[in-house]
């Protein structure tokens, strides 16, 4: 389901296709709304250990520090009852999650044939559904954990969002754990555990940003990726690190892209006991890698451009790096801050990259293709701030401000603000009960999203807003 959300952002990078893409915008947005709010809250874990959801979640699905430690330990409390042999044989760690919603989506400029100006505002509202997730995870044996997440869009078309096995506490040390498969990157602010559900508010823009006209879809740290992760942490989880080696395929199975293109994702953080304020954490992340820009095409190829799967080559580089801060100001108020500086190769900036899916318009041909004079690496900076007010363990009020500003466009002369994003989100989640058996939340949210210069006419700004109410439940 995450693919729908990312496609929304990817679509915005090419003004040349904006007329088509914007026409589909409202429709896609409706789908995205239902598709994007996927996260990992697992009453199956609560049932296993007899803990309330609130023990691990600040407000489910967002983890608190105890829940993060539980996850870092391989879904183990590190007591004597982590192995499944302690469970009733009938216990099977499965949880489903789905969210019936009502929402109103409005987009200020959508290309239409009926409008004299060629574009008009479209507003839709109605009752809707999210997709369906089946979470299953836990331990196969003490210190052998797993997670499998078949996930569907609202039409019940499934894919594997997560499939991973993990060796935990290798050598009886929490400093060495190895995860293998498809998994969420070790983002301290987890998009899979996001508290918001709208199409644009239900993702972190920072985790998916791609400049306008850019052809690189592979640097999306919000998407689950295929690879191997080594991570470690101190016994109380105050100190954490992780290093991942990933295929540069944005989590797509079947080796559809480059033959030898890899990325890495590195994180580190340190938490501090801040007395009555709580536990505060500071960390960093770096995602850097290479992805293909040239593709072989032919009659046996698939996709929009007849690309032969796995034939990608002539890799170019990209990077995303930033800092993360989790700040607690007593038992009720906290805020998470994430920064990002991003850079793509000038080749990506000029529309080379994911030609295989038709997302990049250009296919690099060795000896023939050349960068336009003056082309530069596109760079940008962004920040997101997400404050929470935890009224009590059952009720949370939340907000988010995100802004991304281009610091260098790939093509000289391009408006400096082309592709800039600003997004505001506010909302609440209320859990009328707290048990170890199920999760249930009344959810209300409003998101306003704005991007410079990407309206169908290629010069004006695109704005959308969404109001959403729903009942989010899992069991």
């Amino acid at each position, binding site marked *: 389901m995450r693919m729908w959300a990312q496609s929304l952002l990817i679509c915005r990078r090419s003004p040349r296709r904006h007329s088509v893409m914007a026409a589909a915008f409202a429709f896609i947005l409706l789908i995205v709304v239902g598709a994007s709010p996927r996260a990992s809250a697992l009453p199956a874990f609560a049932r296993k250990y*007899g803990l309330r959801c609130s023990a691990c979640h600040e407000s489910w699905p967002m983890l608190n520090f105890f829940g993060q430690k539980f996850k870092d330990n391989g879904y183990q409390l590190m*007591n*004597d009852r982590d192995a499944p042999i302690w469970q009733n044989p009938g216990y099977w760690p499965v949880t489903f999650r789905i969210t019936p919603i009502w929402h109103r989506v409005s987009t200020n400029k959508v290309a239409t044939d009926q409008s004299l100006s060629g574009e008009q505002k479209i507003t839709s509202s109605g009752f809707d559904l999210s997709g369906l997730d089946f979470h299953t995870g836990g331990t196969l044996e003490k210190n052998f954990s797993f997670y499998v997440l078949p996930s569907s869009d609202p039409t019940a078309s499934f894919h594997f969002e997560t499939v991973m096995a993990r060796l935990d506490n290798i050598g009886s040390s929490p400093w060495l754990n190895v995860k293998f498969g498809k998994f969420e990157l070790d983002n301290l602010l987890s998009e899979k555990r996001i508290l918001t559900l709208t199409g644009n508010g239900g993702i972190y823009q920072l985790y998916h940003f791609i400049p306008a006209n850019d052809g690189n879809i592979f640097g999306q740290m919000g998407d689950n990726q295929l690879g191997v992760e080594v991570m470690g942490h101190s016994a109380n989880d105050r100190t954490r690190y992780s290093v991942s080696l990933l295929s540069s395929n944005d989590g797509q199975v079947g080796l559809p892209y480059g033959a030898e293109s890899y990325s890495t994702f590195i994180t580190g953080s340190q938490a501090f*006991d801040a007395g009555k304020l*709580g536990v505060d954490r500071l960390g960093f992340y770096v995602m850097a890698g290479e992805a293909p820009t040239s593709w072989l095409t032919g009659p046996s190829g698939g996709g929009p451009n007849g690309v032969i799967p796995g034939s990608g080559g002539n890799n170019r580089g990209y990077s995303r790096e930033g800092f993360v801060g989790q700040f607690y100001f007593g038992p009720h108020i906290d805020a998470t801050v994430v920064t990002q500086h991003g850079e793509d190769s000038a080749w990506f900036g000029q529309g080379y990259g994911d030609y295989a899916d038709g997302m990049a318009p250009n296919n690099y041909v060795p000896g023939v293709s050349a960068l336009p004079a003056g082309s530069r690496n596109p760079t940008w900076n962004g920040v997101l701030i997400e404050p929470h007010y935890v009224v*009590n*363990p059952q009720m949370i009020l939340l907000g988010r401000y995100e802004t991304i500003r281009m610091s260098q466009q790939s093509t000289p002369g391009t408006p400096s603000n082309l592709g800039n994003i600003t997004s505001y989100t506010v909302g609440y989640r209320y859990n009328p009960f707290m048990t170890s058996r199920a999760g249930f939340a009344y959810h209300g949210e409003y998101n306003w999203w704005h991007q410079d210069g990407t309206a169908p006419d290629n010069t004006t700004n695109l704005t959308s807003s969404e109001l959403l109410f729903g009942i989010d439940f899992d069991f």
Partner: protein
Amino acid sequence: MNSLRPRRLTGAILFTSVIAVLLVAGLATLASAQDEPLVGPKPPVAVKPMESHIGNLTGHAADAKSDYRRYCAGCHGVYGDGNGENAVWLDPKPRNFTLATFKCRSTLTGTLPIDEDLYNSIARGFTNSNMPPWNTFTKQQRADLVAYIKIFSPRWEKEKAGEPIKIPPEPPVTIESISHGQALFAKLECWKCHGTHGEGDGPSAATLTDSQDQPIRPYNFAGGGNDSRFKCGSTNQDIYKIFMTGVDGTPMPSFADVIQPNDAWDLVHFLRTLQVHRHGKENEVLMAAHGVIPPYVDKNAAPTAAPADNKAPGGGQ
């Protein structure tokens, strides 16, 4: 244009109605977001102004109200009576704070623990139970929770905590100390519950109940690996404390009036050899003696009788 107005009006009315209904629903949830459960018994209305003192930290019960609900009440119950919604599924049962009887203390049996005992218990968790180590809490959170636990029993207002026992320095581990410990293990009839090889399978094991008539199992020394823990800690000092203070609320008595401190250390050394998968100095000494514990010869008394099954208690051999 005019013909569109009624439709717009209808749409506006419909939209406003939907928003109104949903907002009212949202506000209703806000209004009902009281800091207490919607079903079941209500927690104490007013939190007593209890305090805890751990080093320089002062914990305040009122500051832990939310944390107790979030982390503890599911098992220990909103009234602290060990009757949370999960309690029926748990074995052993969660601690009943209304009795103010605690297993892990540094104080003599029957007395209240010092605040630090409870503070350490929260961070350490309890092996062989569902109580996890809550070591992600801040020190202040733990101190506040210790204070909160006190609101459930009037004992904390009427009694002072006991005096911590004195733990003398640990003597060197020798094969003689292990041998003496083995003799004490037999003499004090530890094997009746813990089994001759410390596997928790003594002849009395199946009959044991705690002070609330719940079945309880004796500790299995031989289970677990190199990092196995005891309920009240993992160090030799912790083991010493366990049998000198007793585990209140369980059949495990205090031996403070029965054995001398040096004898207690010998017993510690022997108990460590029952942890056959543990790499420690006690098992190293035993290995150096080819895995055989020589019979203890008391120069002042007759040799101790062997246990009923005529097997020498011990492990590591």
